[in-house]
């Protein structure tokens, strides 16, 4: 049982970090970013190239992944989303754009990095063995802790920095924020860059454990959507809660339901639909966000 909880916590920390980026972008621009999983994959490949190929320290690679993704995110917002949002009659049109960007990133990643599954050397060796009740490799623990530290840093940044305040104001009410003198265009770009950066950081962290391949972007996006739905779209605390809940449910489900065959995800998906029809806005969302 302890093992299941430990696995759940570790998974949850990763998931929460992915969901945070997605929910941030959604809160700011009302855009459902289909390309979020692809941004994650890109982060993973940047880390793979710098840490695995060029043999530079892992910290450098992670930092490079964060910066690269922030730049990519900023460019996507500045030149694609902003244009389409201004010109389009219905705001759903951004979903087509997001899907197009997802395809585009998929294609670029496939062309540049190939279709092989890529892994990197472990960042730390050894396994924590607590009386055979919890067995956890040290690198997983380190990655889990790093993820939790990143989440904490992000929350503090959103809460106390000037940028964070501006972003929260934007998320609450775009027009009011503009009237109060927030540079909406600039902070939308920063917000999108921040969201993409979070995806890149998780990608960089997880490449050390699960490796990365060009096909996992789509499934990651769908998982991220689910977490955001559980917690409530556009709410930061909700994304964190959703991430940990999904991680825990997955970990427990895979253990408990194993005897019934491969139905864990069916059960998770079906119960999510039931949950959402009872509580449409998720755990902490505002109605009709």
């Amino acid at each position: 049982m302890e093992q299941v909880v430990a696995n759940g916590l570790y998974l949850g920390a990763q998931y929460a970090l992915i969901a945070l980026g997605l929910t941030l972008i959604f809160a700011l621009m009302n855009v459902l970013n289909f390309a979020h999983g692809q941004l994650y994959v890109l982060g993973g490949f940047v880390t793979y190239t710098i840490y695995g190929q060029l043999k530079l320290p892992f910290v450098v690679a992670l930092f490079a992944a964060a910066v690269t993704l922030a730049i990519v995110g900023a460019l996507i917002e500045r030149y694609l989303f902003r244009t389409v949002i201004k010109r389009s009659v219905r705001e759903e049109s951004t979903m087509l754009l997001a899907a197009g960007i997802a395809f585009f990133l998929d294609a670029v990643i496939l062309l540049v990095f190939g279709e092989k599954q890529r892994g990197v050397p472990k960042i730390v060796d050894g396994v924590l063995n607590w009386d055979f009740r919890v067995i956890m490799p040290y690198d997983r623990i380190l990655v889990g802790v790093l993820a939790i530290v990143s989440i904490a840093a992000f929350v503090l940044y959103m809460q106390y920095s000037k940028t964070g305040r501006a972003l929260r104001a934007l998320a609450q009410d775009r027009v009011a924020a503009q009237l109060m003198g927030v540079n909406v265009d600039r902070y939308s770009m920063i917000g999108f860059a921040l969201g993409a950066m979070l995806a890149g950081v998780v990608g960089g962290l997880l490449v050390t454990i699960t490796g990365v391949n060009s096909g996992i972007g789509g499934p990651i996006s769908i998982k991220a959507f689910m977490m955001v739905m559980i917690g409530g779209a556009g709410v930061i605390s909700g994304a964190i809660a959703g991430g940990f809940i999904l991680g825990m449910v997955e970990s427990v489900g895979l253990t408990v339901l194993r005897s019934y065959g491969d139905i864990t995800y069916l059960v998770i998906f079906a119960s999510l639909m039931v949950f959402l029809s009872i509580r449409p806005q998720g755990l902490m969302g505002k109605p009709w966000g």
Partner: protein
Amino acid sequence: MTGGARIAWVGLFLAVVLVGVPAFIAVSGRWDLYYTLTSVALLSIASAGVWLTFYIGRINIGQGAYALIGGYVSAVLVVKYGVSFWLTLPIAGLFCMVASVLIGLPILRLRGVYFAMVTLVLTEVARLSMLALPITNGAKGITNIPLPGALTLFGITVIPDFAGLADVKPAFYYLSVGLMIVSFAVLYRLVNSRLGHLCRSLQQNEELASSIGVNIAYLRIVAYAISSFLGGIGGAIFAAISQSVYPSSFTITDSINFMLNCFLGGLGYVFGPMLGTLVLYFGWDLLFQTGEFQLLIFSTVLIGLMLALPNGLLSLRFSRIGGGASRRG
């Protein structure tokens, strides 16, 4: 546009798809086009359903689920119970309709991205259910589905036995295109009826519509049920053409593509999904020869189109000619 001009457009369209295209194929010898165009017709039927849910202001990424269910209902009935394909076709549609009413009652209360994401999950639920249910044969799917048999009404053979035909491709082409024409004609009629106007009021403001006495819950269910019906029959014919159906026949990618077809054609135009499907499917097919760059070019064009024409392809014609020219038949 006057009534006469509209009839002329309808006539031209019918002549092209029913006579022009088969004649062109016979002359040029491009028999593979039949398969492509049949797929386009079927996918545009399913996309028309998605379009209708857009029309009541819901983003539907769950059409793949109904196409999959429709395919399986038809396949199971034909293979395991020996029911005629022509009977399973409406049954598949009706089954999806009933399923969509049951599913729609709770989830149609959701709006915006919430509805979009639940329907996305629904596609995945359908796929995983088909993997898990005992009757669907798991990941192996149902294969070797016999071709549709003859359909006789009052002793007259209306449709010949497909297995007895020299070439089955044109038969499926006429079947799919015929159904597509009927679906879009019904959709056009629906949108321009009282029901259609009420649906438009839902798209604009549900509370307001409700406050002046529109039964919004009922309308949402009706629109969603019709949408799922179209998805179901599209999926059923697809299963008959490929003579097989697998849990992966319709996945999230297909659901997203159905939605993209509508976006690309334009959400404000009944015939948007048809044009969108044609352009997306053919574009993808044409780019096949570019090999590894296929997806790159395709997505670049998609993004470019989105930047240039964010309101769909038909908006181009709309802005140039103006007025009611958008709803031609």
